[in-house]
């Protein structure tokens, strides 16, 4: 066993050394590397291979989230503020069609509140007995309606880039962590790459540095994953949304709240998962201990 362990350790060292060499030499190689074939138009990749930096230009900062770690849980007040930011700002362009109103109870709302919230929306239903489609007030069982009738309409209204659906955004984004950080992430349980990215992007808009040309209709953001600029203009500004609970009306606060809300939208069962996980862990550790003691007792009589 000891030998296996030391073997694994020396392995990790070897792999680490190899990776370190590879990373050190990488920037020098970049300029010489030929553009890879098959890159899609519009992405930042083709430029990246030409010698400009890989995207994103800046990596997102790691924020403190209540839902991180072993005992992670959602801050309900924060989720409610995030919902407010989503409904007042994001939802003008972004759909969230996997989330149903009834699940908003997870944000701490009562049945009546959910019903009243849903009633703010109109959804299409039908056909009725006459064969006509009609609109009615949304029920808790309905999902958030989309702001555009189809992706083509969404793209046409947004400079050719359809705004992505937000239901899974917090799990569908994440900047590569690189070696050796991804190894440490296993032990720190880092799973918040999505919210970190969303927060960084929302707070990251700035004027392009001197010498950087930004295509018309796009907006410079060094945190954007695929290019130096993106089609979405800076969506949030200080004071834009009025909070009822006294939380600061700042861009940073909005970004944190909406990122947390989107994490909830993408993973509504996160709290249940972590709570269950903790009980499973306790069970497994005790179970393993008992097996270990049994095994030791049985083997004690033998020479091994």
């Amino acid at each position, binding site marked *: 066993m000891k030998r296996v362990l030391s073997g694994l350790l020396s*392995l990790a060292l070897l*792999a680490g050394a190899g990776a370190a060499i590879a990373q050190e030499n990488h920037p020098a190689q970049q300029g010489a590397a030929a553009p890879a074939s098959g890159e899609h138009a519009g992405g930042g990749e083709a430029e990246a291979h030409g010698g400009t930096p890989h995207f994103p230009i800046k990596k997102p900062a790691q924020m403190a989230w209540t839902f991180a770690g072993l005992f992670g849980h959602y801050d309900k007040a924060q989720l409610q503020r995030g919902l407010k930011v989503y409904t007042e700002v994001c939802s003008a362009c972004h759909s969230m069609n996997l989330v149903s109103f009834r699940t908003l109870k997870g944000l701490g709302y009562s049945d009546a509140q959910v019903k009243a919230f849903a009633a703010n929306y109109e959804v299409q239903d039908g056909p009725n007995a006459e064969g006509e489609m009609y609109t009615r007030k949304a029920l808790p069982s309905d999902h958030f309606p989309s702001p555009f009738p189809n992706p083509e309409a969404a793209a046409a209204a947004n400079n050719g880039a359809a705004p992505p659906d937000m239901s899974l955004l917090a799990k569908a984004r994440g900047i590569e962590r690189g070696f050796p950080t991804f190894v440490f992430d296993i032990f720190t349980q*880092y799973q918040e790459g999505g919210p970190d990215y969303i927060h960084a992007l929302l707070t990251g808009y700035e004027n392009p540095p001197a010498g950087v040309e930004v295509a018309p209709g796009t907006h410079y953001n060094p945190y954007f994953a*695929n290019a130096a600029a993106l089609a979405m203009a800076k969506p949030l500004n200080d004071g834009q949304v009025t909070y009822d609970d006294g939380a600061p009306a700042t861009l940073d606060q909005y970004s944190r709240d909406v990122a947390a809300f989107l994490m909830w939208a*993408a993973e509504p069962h996160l709290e249940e*998962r972590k709570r269950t996980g903790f009980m499973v862990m306790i069970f497994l550790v005790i179970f393993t201990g008992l*097996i270990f003691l049994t095994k030791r007792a049985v083997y004690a009589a033998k020479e*091994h």
Partner: protein
Amino acid sequence: MSGEHSTYTPTSGIERWVDSRLPLPRMLHDSFISYPVPRNLNYAYTFGAMLSVMLLVQIVTGVVLAMHYAAETTVAFNSVEKIMRDVNHGWLLRYMHANGASFFFIAVYLHIARGLYYGSYKAPREILWILGVVIYLLMMATGFMGYVLPWGQMSFWGATVITGFFSAFPLVGEWIQQFLLGGFAVDNPTLNRFFALHYLLPFMIAGVVILHIWALHVTGQTNPTGIEIKTKTDTVAFTPYATLKDALGVSVFLIVFAWFIFYMPNYLGHPDNYIPANSLKTPAHIVPEWYYLPFYAMLRAITFNVGPIDSKLGGVLVMFGAIIILFFLPWLDTSKVRSAVYRPWYKLFFWLFVANAILLGWLGSRPAEGLYVILSQLGTLYYFGFFLVIMPVLGLVETPKRIPNSITEAVLEKRSGGSPATV
């Protein structure tokens, strides 16, 4: 199945009645209770048990998931999300299944490495080894097709890239590709047949696993010394000795598995697969699942043409060759000594091989450019060099250490040598 005289004695009337009609309880008793195993098996020999558990976990969770999943391109993605959001404990089932695939591969790689280290593939266990490689191939096919089912961006583009490999073969390539896809591109027919096959293959794996265990019980297990069982003192009964050691190994393995399921279920996946498949939008980097990465690195390492073989076909041949070569391992290794414990040079090259495999895996996740390509080429060279040059030559020139006369002697030597008994 051990070839030993059966020690099963039916005690009740019912047991005697069954035993004289279908002696299944006798077979189970002889295979998993009284079956003699070498007394010096260490924890490297518990990965087989983990693999059995993982196969069972995958089949059970998979069957339940299939009850809620719909294999149709317009609804597949949302049906998975319905499982995650609305099905009772659906999130648990899906995360168990998705991470279970990864842990299945972790266990199989450790199992294969153990076989390589202790020379488990050598005569008379060639068929046992070959059946193992067949299981591994079936696992790769199953894992690949399973990853397509959620119909995310990486599902779609991974399927496009991997089925595209087959078009590299001259004359028949395009036909094979279209046969696999059920059309000219990845689409609804592809998803449907992948779902059907993804449901079928695990049961084929289970069938080959039975053959694998049968072959194992005919030849008996190897052990860290590589010496065959000679006397009864060399062995202990499967139950309780091996069962308890296996149970402990499995239990520790499950702790790590649970860590991923409950706390970092998306760590081993790719964020892009939470974006619905879009045939008009190629992801910036198409990366296969981590367990294929070493082979992906070898595929992309071939950037040059060799005579009539262009770089694309060359890469595909190297990638498939990297697996096919495993079938010939029993005959490539010329050493008469089985275990690496007594082969100092082989031991060194073995650990280099493992380090190289991990390095190739990391390179497979990098873009194919600059130094990464050169390192991949060196890694590929060592991968094949290990099997085609080092193994045959080393067996002829290496001087092994003194080998004990029996397993019992090895165990007693270790005890008197003052070193603590490695359990």
